């Protein structure tokens, strides 16, 4: 699914540009197409939200961009350019000057991403020494500043503590401090708040936002929760079965959703403003197996709009509005989409044979 996405602002080189990236794993069950032709771009100071459920390939995509996947059973094609430099062909030795210094990553579980037997201070000063040549008192003072900037009280004392002495939220602040230590240009946050409580999640997301503005960093937030990126990302890409199925500036995506999967995700989330016991518009079935996806749209078996064409022809990303693309033959909110849904409603089932829950489908049509 190559995209015909125009470069906005000529001569304005993007910070990160991913073109038709494919990442397959050779397993005893067959080839798993975890990332299957993804293109995206991130500019300095901008936030891209990548949204998808478990198994959609979002985490593999982030690892693949960062060159962090094992080489032995991985097949990788396409290109990843970071400030014009091609990363896919780089050796680990070269990558080491980029990891931490120019691109950094925050992972979901702060307990496993920190070293349990090393003091927090040493974990921060490690990369300061490697990339910036800072040692001793200079490095220590820098580490204290970093811990203060991520909102850790009594920073001097914390330097001598171990990760298990901190709460989950404080640990995630430490991993953010480590990621920011060398002033990276791009920060990839893979489910940064999933392991945290809502009140702490809010604090961490606010912190990421402030740090990004101060440093003019590019930020990729990977999450399964549309709520996490709704108020924070400039652009959102929705992934399903290893592909981007819809991409748009955030407001546009929520205001004019085109892909039935995005619509389904939005509608299946319980909302606070709905009265209690509101029936949720669940997406039937479950995500497809990535080993042998078969022909057609991978979402077709779960889609209210599915027609015969969806079972045989895989849709590609097509433009709908400025910067808005969706991979769907019968997009939501278009005449084609409405007709498709009406046909399925009349038949009581979709072309893929999925029975239509009329209450759900009507709610869907009403919103279109």
């Amino acid at each position, binding site marked *: 699914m190559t995209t015909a996405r125009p470069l906005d602002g000529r001569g304005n080189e993007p910070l990160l540009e991913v073109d038709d990236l494919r990442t397959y794993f050779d397993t005893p069950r067959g080839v798993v197409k975890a990332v299957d032709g993804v293109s995206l771009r991130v500019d300095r100071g901008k936030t891209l939200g990548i949204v998808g*459920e*478990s198994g959609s390939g979002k985490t593999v995509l982030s690892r693949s961009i960062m060159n962090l996947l094992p080489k032995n059973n991985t097949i990788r094609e396409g290109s990843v350019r970071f400030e014009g430099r091609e990363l896919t062909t780089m050796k680990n030795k070269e990558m080491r000057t980029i990891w931490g210094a120019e691109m950094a990553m925050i992972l979901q579980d702060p307990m496993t991403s920190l070293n349990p037997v090393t003091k927090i201070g040493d974990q921060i000063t490690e990369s300061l020494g490697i990339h910036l040549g800072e040692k001793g008192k200079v490095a220590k003072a820098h580490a204290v500043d970093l811990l203060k900037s991520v909102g850790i009280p009594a920073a001097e004392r914390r330097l001598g503590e171990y990760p298990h002495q901190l*709460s*989950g*939220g*404080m640990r995630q602040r430490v991993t953010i401090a480590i990621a920011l230590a060398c002033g990276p240009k791009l920060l990839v946050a893979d489910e940064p708040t999933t392991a945290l*409580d*809502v*009140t*702490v*999640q*809010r*604090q961490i*997301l*606010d912190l990421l936002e402030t740090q990004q503005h101060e440093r003019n960093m590019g930020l990729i937030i990977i999450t*399964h*929760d*549309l*709520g*996490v990126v*709704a*108020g924070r990302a400039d652009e959102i890409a929705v992934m399903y079965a290893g592909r981007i199925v819809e991409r748009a500036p*955030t*407001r546009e995506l*929520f205001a004019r959703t085109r892909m039935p999967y995005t619509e*389904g*995700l*939005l509608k*299946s*989330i*319980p*909302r*606070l*403003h*709905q*009265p*209690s*016991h*509101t*029936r*949720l*518009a*669940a*997406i*039937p079935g*479950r*995500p497809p197996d990535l080993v042998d996806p078969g022909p057609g749209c991978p979402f077709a078996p*779960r889609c209210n709009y599915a027609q015969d064409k969806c079972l045989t022809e895989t849709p590609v990303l097509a433009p709908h509005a400025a910067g808005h693309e969706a991979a769907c033959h019968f997009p939501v909110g278009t005449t084609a989409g409405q007709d498709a849904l009406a046909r399925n409603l009349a038949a009581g089932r979709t072309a893929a044979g999925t029975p239509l829950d009329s209450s759900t489908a009507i709610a869907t049509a009403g919103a279109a």
Partner: protein
Amino acid sequence: MAGSGTAHLRDQDDIVLRVEGLVVEFPLERGQKVHAVSGISFDIAKGETLGLVGESGCGKSTTGRAIMQAPRPTSGEVLFDGKDLSSLSADELRRSRTKLQMIYQDPISSLNPRRRVKDIVAEGLSIWEGKGSDDPRVEELLAAVGLDPDRAGGRRPHELSGGQCQRVSIARSLIMRPEVLICDEPVSALDVSVQAQILNLLEDLKAEYNLTMVFIAHDLAVVKNISDRVAVMYLGKICEVAPSDTLYAHPAHPYTAALLASIPEPDPEAKHTDAGLTGELPSPVNPPSGCRFRTRCPRAAERCELEEPQMREVATGQFVACHFPLVGEQAPEGNRELATAPA
């Protein structure tokens, strides 16, 4: 919050489960102890769903397990079926538990990996009635939870997805026709699209099997969707109990308001309020004196340190343990506005 007190307990005939003064403590070395649950009370009427919501460490799961007497609470009463479960013998308790069932957060690890789905579901029958997995009720329940008995019945848990395993757990919990179902974070390990399927399923089964439910979760939006009444917990105490729609429209406890404000709404137009909480949960080993929420509360005053607030009614059916609630006579002007704004 909080505070203690029993003003919110109802004097009705249709109360199925009543918890009074429940205390659960876990001993530590040097005579210290973890105050996991510190004197909470609530009741549930027949056919009602009570949501228990709070952050990790607030004692909500411990409460669920203490109702099941697994382990038995340090003190307090759990009245079910006219009996105090905490005073029953082990044998009597086993019998009562057939009417009181629980489903857990991790659907895969809560199922025996070596047994087939139909044997897992039939376990209650084989223990109490000597029946096997060929009993028609097994097939009926598998179908009721949306699994194909012929295809799924012979499989083992590792062959199923997380959502399917949670369906098996639900079928297992319903086989003895319980009156009360305690759900401990039943959907938090599932993807959003599957989460909605399971929530809808629980609503359907509740109606079909006349269930009374306790729904424990950290996600206020999920709890609000499924519950009739919600109890908000903080550090082993209950802050506020109210009908779910009231709780959302007019939160009375500052902690409830902060929890609501923290939820990221999937709507880019939603306004960011600055009611976010600062600081962290204090240690349950040395909980703060007076109101346990006072160390993080924007409205805390000296009184909150000295005197533990007691449960009292501030609006119809809405009870709060706070000296300075956001609803009622003392509510500040600005907050009254805030409370009505989201509607």
